[in-house]
């Protein structure tokens, strides 16, 4: 499990890439990934291309990010989910809360 962040050249977009299992053990690293970013960041991309699995605590963590980023005004895109991850997000109605691609 590892989390990598990358700021885009535009300065406003932060990509958070989660490797392996996204569960409670990732909690601190995931929060650190966005909380210490500077104020200019307005768009978030969660890259799940290497995320094998996501559990209910990770759903809570995604909601923490969403509220941090402004709740309904948040600009968060979740990308490259595998079928298992996608299914968990769908069952949990996260398609109404995030842009999932």
């Amino acid at each position, binding site marked *: 499990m590892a989390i990598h962040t990358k700021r885009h050249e535009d300065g406003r977009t932060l990509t958070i890439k989660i490797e392996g299992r996204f569960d409670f053990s990732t*909690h601190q690293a995931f929060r650190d990934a966005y909380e210490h970013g500077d104020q200019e960041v307005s768009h978030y991309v969660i890259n799940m291309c290497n995320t094998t*699995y996501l*559990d*209910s*605590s990770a759903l*809570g963590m995604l*909601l923490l990010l969403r509220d941090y980023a402004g709740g309904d005004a948040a600009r968060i895109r979740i990308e490259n989910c595998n079928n*298992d991850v996608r*299914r*968990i997000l769908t069952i949990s109605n996260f398609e109404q809360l995030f842009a999932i691609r």
Partner: protein
Amino acid sequence: MDEPLPETGPLRVLIADDSDSDRLILQTMVRRQGHEVGDSLTPFDAVMRGVPGFTGAQVVQDDLTVVTLEMVDERELADLPNRIPQSALQGPAHWSCVYEINNQTLSYFNPLPLLLHICMEVPGLRRRSGEVYTLLSELYTNALEHGILELPSSWKSSPEGFGHYYAERERRLADSEGHYIRFTLDHKTSRRGGELRILCKDSGAGFDFAGLVSALESGEPQARYAGRGLVLLQQLSRSLTFKEQGNHVEVVYHWDFTEASTQN
């Protein structure tokens, strides 16, 4: 092949291709570059002939498996039925097992990979590994965090509370003496598919599940950043039942031979 080959001297090239004319063209081109070409064969024959050359005079003791793959256009695959072949009926059909971890083992050992592995022996469950893992993992997390460690979901109502919850999880986990989590897995197949029954029992005091069940039915979340595990259990399974004092939870999961994989 306009580019000259690298200056490594003449090479010995094994040409293998199903098409006779392609083999001939390749042979001519490679020879023209100054390389040595052996007999060109179909890929299967080439590999079979290469085996004794590779193993030498050794008597081959390994099991040898040679597989031929036919490469086809993706469109041709679309017509294949999305079902498990008949051979998949092999594997354990009727079985059950009880696996309990207890005392200090709870504080450092994760039993989920092993439990998943047992379930994956059933071919019909293999393509649903994601769902089966979710069922096992959400049951286990609830038993451990709420049942044994008595961590309240209500803490997960703020970012600080969320952090506190997991800090406290680690602290309380240090002493799990006298506790257990017991999984009972029970599987049987039917003509159409199979049923996996997962019982998870913990040594905790249980909880008021009647209140929780009605909250689940009304769709009211317990806390802003929590309470989604039970929804997953409910959605993925045929039934979710709380027994005894709520420290005994049963999930019934059905799978079907003919059903297209739900994960696609």
